[in-house]
Structure formats: C-alpha cells, structure tokens
C-alpha cells in the first residue's frame, strides 16, 4: 500500500469509528436530555415534511446492498489470493451493512426518537467500509495485473 493509500485507509477508519461513536452519542443524549430529545423530534417532523424519509431509507438499503454484493463478487473472484486482512475487511463490510439494513427496517421514529440520525450514521459507516475495502481490493488487483 502506498503512503497516500495508507493515509486514506486511516482517515476512512477514523471516520467510520466517528460515525459509530456518533450514533451511540446521539442516541444516548436523545434519551438522557430533554432539550436534545425535543430537538431531534423537531428535526424528525421537519425532515418528514420536506423529504420522503421512508423512500430515502429504502434507497439507502438498496444502494448499500448492491454495493455490498458487488464487493463480495469482487472478493470471491479472487478468494484464493485473499489473506486474513482481506477476510476481516469483508467481514466488516457484511457486519456494518447488515447492521444498517436491520436497524433501518426494524426500528422507526416511533420506537426510537434518534432513528433517522442513527440510521444515517450506520449507513455512512457501512458505506465508508465498502469504499475502503473495495478500493483496497481494486488497487490490489491492479497492482497484480501490472506485475
């Protein structure tokens, strides 16, 4: 991996962690602080008025699912060449995508006030993981082709 590639990898990983930590923090304070709960509720209703939130959720689920499947096809095409690190990356892709899809389908604003924000943050984390793992695989394939 080049130096720039390593930097991108680290930045991507940090962003993922921030998304997951953000989801926890947002949910925690929405449950603990009345002002935060009301702010989140207010935003929920504002977003629902302005945007088709349910439709956007489905678009998010379909997009990430397609990206995950595409990544897995790429992964299984070269499965013999994959090391332990690649397996872990692929596992993280599946884990985060499943988490996002499960959460988005099972939960709702009525069940959990911070639903939209948490769902978006899970989705962002899954997307970043797919981008990171996908880029890694593509670069690796190109490097091998060049050799």
């Amino acid at each position, binding site marked *: 991996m080049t130096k720039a590639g390593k930097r991108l990898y680290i930045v991507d*990983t940090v962003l*993922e*962690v921030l998304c*997951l*930590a953000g*989801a*926890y923090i947002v*949910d*925690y304070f929405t*449950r*603990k602080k*009345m*002002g*935060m*709960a*009301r*702010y989140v*509720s*207010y*935003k929920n*209703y504002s977003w629902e008025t302005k945007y088709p939130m349910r439709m956007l959720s489905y678009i998010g689920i379909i997009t990430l699912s397609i990206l995950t499947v595409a990544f897995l096809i790429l992964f299984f095409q070269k499965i013999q060449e994959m090391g*332990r*690190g690649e397996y*872990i*990356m692929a*596992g*993280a892709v599946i*884990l*985060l995508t499943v*988490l996002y899809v499960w*959460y988005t389908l099972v*939960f709702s604003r009525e*069940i*959990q*006030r911070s639903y939209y924000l*948490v769902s978006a943050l899970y989705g962002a*984390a899954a997307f970043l993981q797919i981008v990171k793992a996908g880029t890694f695989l593509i670069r690796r394939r190109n490097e091998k082709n060049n050799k």
Partner: protein
Amino acid sequence: MKKKILSILFCTMLTTFTVLGCSSKEEKKDTKKQDTKPAAEQTSKVEAEAVDTKQVYVTPEWVQSVIDGNQDESDNYVILECSWGTEKDSPVYGEAHIPGAYHMNTDNIEEDQYWNIRSGEEIEKVLTDFGITKDTTVICYGDIGTNSADDRVAFTALWAGVGNVKCLDGGMEAWTKAGYDTEDGSNEPKTAKEAFGVEIPAHPEYILTIDQVKDKQENDEKFKLVSIRSKDEFLGKTSGYSYIDKAGEPKGAIWGHDTDDGSYLDKNGNTVGTDVLKNYLSESGASLDDDLAFYCGTGWRATIPFLIMYQEGYTNMSLYDGGWFVWQMDDSNPVQVGDPASDNVEYITVGGLSNDKAAK
C-alpha cells in the same frame, strides 16, 4: 494487521453498545426491596390539617399524613414523581423518592410533535394504567419548587377530570428538608380495576388551541394572553429553547413573569397566591378579573399560575397549550418583538423573524 483487528473490534464494540442502548426503550422495572414499610406499618404518624379538595399546593406534612392514613385522601391516592425521561433515564426517581411513588414520564402525557397534552383516549389509558380514576387523589411532585413538570401533570389530571389533585410544594427538596422517609428501587403502578369514570377531558375549557386564542384576541375585549416566560424570551432576545430558532411573542401578549426564576415562589420556597399574580398582571394593566390565558414555550410553566388561580376558586383562566413553539410555526402569525409597553417594540409576522435565536 493488529491495528486492523483492533479497529474492527472497536467498531463492533461501539455498534453493540449502540444497539443495546437502542433496545432500552422497554424499561425493565427494578424490583428492589423498598427501604420503608407499608404506610399502615409506619411508625411516623404525622397529622396535618385537612385541605380543601380544590387546594393544589400542599406541604410535605400533609403528604406524609396522607401516607400515614390520617386524611380522608388516605384511602385512595397515588403519588407521582413527575419528570421527563423513562424511569431508567431520569435521575430524579432513581436517586430517592417518596415511599410508594411512581415515576411519571412527562412524555406519557405529551405528544411529541407540538408537545401538547395527548388526546383524551390516550390520557385515559395513561391514568388508568397508573391506577388513577376520577376519584383518586393524585399527588404530584418534582425535584425542586421551580420545576414545573409536576404542575404540568397535575394540570393534565384536572383537565382529564380527576377531582382532587395536589402538588407537593417545594418538591423532593422540601420533602427531604422536612426529614421524611424516602425509598429507592422501583414501584410498579397497578392498573385501575374500574373505568376512569368520566369522559376525558372533563374540562376541555381549561385548554385553548391556537385558533381559539386568535378568535378571542379578535372578539373578546377582556381576553389577555399572558406570557409566563423570562424577560429575555418576552422581549424576543432568545427563544429560550435549543430547538426553537425564532424569538418573539404572539402580538398582544403581556408579561406575567417567569416561574423558572422563582418569581412564583415566596421566600420559604412555597408557591405564592393570587396576590402576587395580581401584581404581575397589573404591571401590564391586566387584572384577575380578565379572561386570562397563560402560555409559555410548550406549556409547562404556564400551568403554575393556572393552578394558583384554580385553587383560589377562579374559573376565568385557561392554558394556551401550544405556546410560543406552535405560534412560531406559522409564518403568517403576527408577533411582537420588544416591550409592548414602550416604543421599543416591532410588530411583524413570524416569517420576518430571524432564525438565530435558539438558546445556546
């Protein structure tokens, strides 16, 4: 490789915590053994003077005498610790509460779009789930005297049709100061065996909608819309809330002082009477004889002057439940920014207000 594994482990841990946090909506009831004995077995036998059914604000002594079985109300009462948040998430109840008290989350009585009181059907379910019928004496309390969560719940109970509603003056702070027993753990409310007993709301006239307010402003000469908010909120310097961007007041509103700053408590921390309210109203040329509608941001603080008037037998008051929160949602609503008693006031519409006045 180690870094990768560590980062993945960290992500998994965070995810697990978040998901576990999410699932906490189904609150588990803590069934720890209570510290105190049931009322009948208590050694404390506090006696206090009986109070009128309409009297809302009561002393710790009176509440203890109810618990001790020395009041008419002792046969059928429920004590509610009122605060926002689930029992698990609310620190007030968990620290210590009055023996036998249940935690009442204010979300139980307010819908989450406009924070208005829920529908009659919803309130009936909430009340009967807590074992409350129209004949139950409901004793509400908060953590401190200026907290209006208990007043909000008490108001809701009166609106619903409960005949005997009380608020512990000074809240838990006064209770502790008086030296009475507290307990920890959790009490599980028992659903009422019979129906509530009257159609809810029994007193719809206690609440005004925004349309009713506008109608009264146009057609009722004696109508006064009284803001129970801070001076800065009244003057339009701040909305007072992190989730409200616009600041101002409905056009025509007068200032009735704030409850959060202790303006409705005397030097002993007890709720004041209508004599104090009368003085506040007279500052704006209004009186206790006017048709008064109290409001605040979302309807908590404004219940205090309502209850003060209620317990002194007045009937010419109501609560504009939507408050400033609902008023500022419609760009065409007329507003005032500044002191209407001076020249330093601007009359515009909500649409002309800036969006940078949320409380920091």
